[in-house]
């Protein structure tokens, strides 16, 4: 089977992290975001993966070569010289997707969930129509495009309602699809939207179905959601009893959902959790309090610091008694001096912060 992952542009919403690495390589739960997707696709029997990007992907090539080997799959890039929207890239990658007659998966690279590819393929095969959209239930459907089914069928889609004022349903497009190759003939090679042009056309023919996603789902394209998504992901690991999580019997683990790379060092009298990921070679000092945060590779959090709702980018240093909170994001190689407070600061790479950041702001 085949899959195309829509990576798109520079991931500006996830800056300052994406000033250093392309978004698919930013670690989510201590693995690059795209690793989660490739791993799940390979497990479902996918052998060919296209990454649709609109920038030069040199930095990614090395990593992807490793994944090709690890999973025994082929990964190719489809490079847009101009942005082609969400449908155009499919046409551009037509050659790979038309390699055989089997349907192909389409994924937005920002979406994190328990990928249900095997089950999704089986469901798609069972109804035999042209496409299947994964849908997830949300509490406030008025912010999204909602899917409405035909009265006669639990899965066949009747129409899409964009940002409904009145309640018409609470299932929204989760950004994951499985489509027959015939869909490619519905797409022109131009900037075009799969949600607004291609799907409505298939719906008119009554050939599009929905598939309900079990478990968590999150678009982690921006820092706030990246943190929320991390919480959901870690909770899901806990629910599954995943043994990569730090044991609750460790003295410093507090409230569970803590993922620590084996190479990381944790000092004495720390309190870590809930919802914390600590990357490789991270050094946590003594008496540090971490909760709802992501500490990326090679960073250092010094003694007595307090970190909450924060992403500490690679190779950064958080000073003693520093306090970071409210969706603070540190880029690569940032230094927060001792005793400094940062409230919702977005700090670009290679900066040193010497004075408090009292109100959310971007530090260039």
């Amino acid at each position, binding site marked *: 089977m085949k899959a195309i992952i829509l990576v798109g542009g520079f991931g500006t919403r996830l800056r300052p992290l994406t000033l250093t690495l392309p978004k698919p390589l930013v670690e989510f739960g201590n693995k690059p975001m795209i690793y989660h997707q490739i791993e799940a696709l390979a497990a479902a029997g996918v052998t060919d993966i296209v990454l649709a990007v609109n920038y030069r992907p040199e930095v990614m090539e090395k990593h992807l070569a490793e994944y090709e080997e690890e999973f025994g799959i082929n990964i190719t890039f489809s490079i847009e010289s101009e942005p082609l929207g969400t449908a155009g890239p499919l046409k551009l990658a037509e050659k790979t997707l038309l390699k055989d007659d089997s349907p192909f998966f389409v994924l937005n690279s920002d979406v994190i969930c328990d990928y249900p590819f095997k089950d999704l393929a089986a469901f798609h095969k069972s109804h035999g129509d042209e496409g299947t959209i994964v849908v997830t239930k949300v509490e406030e459907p008025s912010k999204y495009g909602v899917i409405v089914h035909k009265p006669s069928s639990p899965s066949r889609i009747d129409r899409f309602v964009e940002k409904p004022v009145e309640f018409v349903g609470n299932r929204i497009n989760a950004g994951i699809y499985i489509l027959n190759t015939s869909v490619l003939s519905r797409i022109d090679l131009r900037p075009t939207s799969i949600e607004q042009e291609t799907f409505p056309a298939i719906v008119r023919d009554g050939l599009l179905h929905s598939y309900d996603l079990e478990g968590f789902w999150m678009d982690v394209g921006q820092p706030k959601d990246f943190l929320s998504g991390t919480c959901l992901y870690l909770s899901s690991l806990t629910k599954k009893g995943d043994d990569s999580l730090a044991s609750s019997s460790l003295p410093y683990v507090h409230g569970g959902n803590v993922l620590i790379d084996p190479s990381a060092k944790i000092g004495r*009298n720390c*309190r870590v959790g809930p919802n914390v990921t600590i990357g490789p070679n991270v050094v946590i000092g*003594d*008496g*540090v309090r971490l909760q709802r945060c992501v500490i990326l590779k090679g960073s250092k959090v010094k003694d*007595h610091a*307090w970190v909450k709702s924060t992403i500490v980018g690679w190779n950064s240093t958080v000073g003693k008694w520093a306090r970071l909170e409210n969706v603070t994001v540190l880029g690569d190689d940032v230094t927060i001096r001792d005793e400094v*407070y940062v409230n919702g600061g977005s700090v670009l790479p290679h900066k040193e912060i010497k004075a408090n950041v*009292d109100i959310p702001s971007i530090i260039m």
Partner: protein
Amino acid sequence: MSLQVPSTIPHRAKDGGQGHASTKAVILVKLPPYISPREACAPWLPSFNTESKVEMAMSIHSDVGGPSRGTRFRPLSLDVPKPLFDVAGHPILWHCVTAVSKVPSIHEVYMIGYYEESVFRDFIKDASTEFPNLSIKYLREYQALGTAGGLYHFRDALLKGRPERIFVLNSDVCCSFPLNDMLKLFVDKDAEAVILGTRVSQDAANTFGCIVSDNHTRRVLHYVEKPESYISNLINCGVYLFSTEAIFPSIKTAIKRRTDRPRLVSYPSSENLESSFMYDDEDDEGREKVIRLEQDILSDMADSKQFYVYETKDFWRQIKTAGSAVPANALYLQQALQSQSKELAEPTPNIIPPVFIHPSARVEPTAKIGPNVSIGPRSHVGAGARIKESIILEDSEVKHDSCVLYSIVGWGGRVGAWARVEGTAIPANSHKTSIVKNGVKVQSITILGKECAVGDEVRVQNCVCLPYKELKRDVANEIIM
């Protein structure tokens, strides 16, 4: 203690009579009327009488003017009168008395104020033991008389033994009190009055009493209290040395003038004509008795007396708002450091001098303290806590891994683990204790009143918290009732 005093005074007076000029000291401990009994503890502090005939009056008075007078040291003054508030390990008054004790000719100190007698009882007892050469007494005003009115009211006590000179100190001043230098100038110039002056920034000057002086002779040419326009950046420090023959007649003249006509606050102009005639107090009886040095005496002295200014290059701050205790604490600690005081904690990698830790306080070795921190009796600072530029009052608990910066933790306060209690640094030469954040004026220093508790991991920034409150959520830029 008070029984021992009379036996020593005649002896001193006799000494004075043998040719040493005697000086007394008066510390003015003023507090306005209509304040809660506790706060009303701190008005006029007594004067100190000395061996040679210099008398010292310390005016322990709090702020004068405005409807909120005397309340600016809240919330701390809700529990302790300002003159007795501890900075650098000792009551504010103690620093005044210590300075007075360094003038050899002073043997009597009178504190004049409006507080009840009981308020200063323990302080006087302790200070009399610590300064055995000083007789320290408290003279209580039963109605607010103003800084000069109080002196005049107690003139019989102050003039007993015929002192030639009298130092008058306001107790809400934090400075090095270069009294001996003032005394030297006084003698050199054969002066009738010497005022301590200091330079402040031009834009801050008009919030103080401004002195115009002759650069060479140091003679005071003109004095205006809180002028509307810029006159001079040499300002009144609230510390004076007067010849007794000059000051008491001057006050008497002012009182007489007062009874003849209302006080002229400033030179009338078309803009302020209506407001320029003001009564000091609501009731007419009180009005006639309130005479202030600053408004009613000094200006006249500049015109008619041998009035000189001693300009200090050393530190000087007013202790007005509660937050100003933090810079005062820092300045007195630095003074103690420079004089190699044995009271200060020994520097270590985790003790950044100057730091005062009361012998009964416990500080875990991994806590990092300083600079400019005082930790009061029986307080406990937990492992890995950080305290900088702050005052921790007695019986407080600062738990592990917490952080306290530019703050005052009131008596019996609790700061939870990983909590952060934070104010904002006051620039080194600023006389302001508030800052504007997001367009709102807030206190620079965070103050937790008595027995306030900050929960674990909670952050408190630029807040003033009244006594007995528990803070469970993050707060910033607020007064918490």
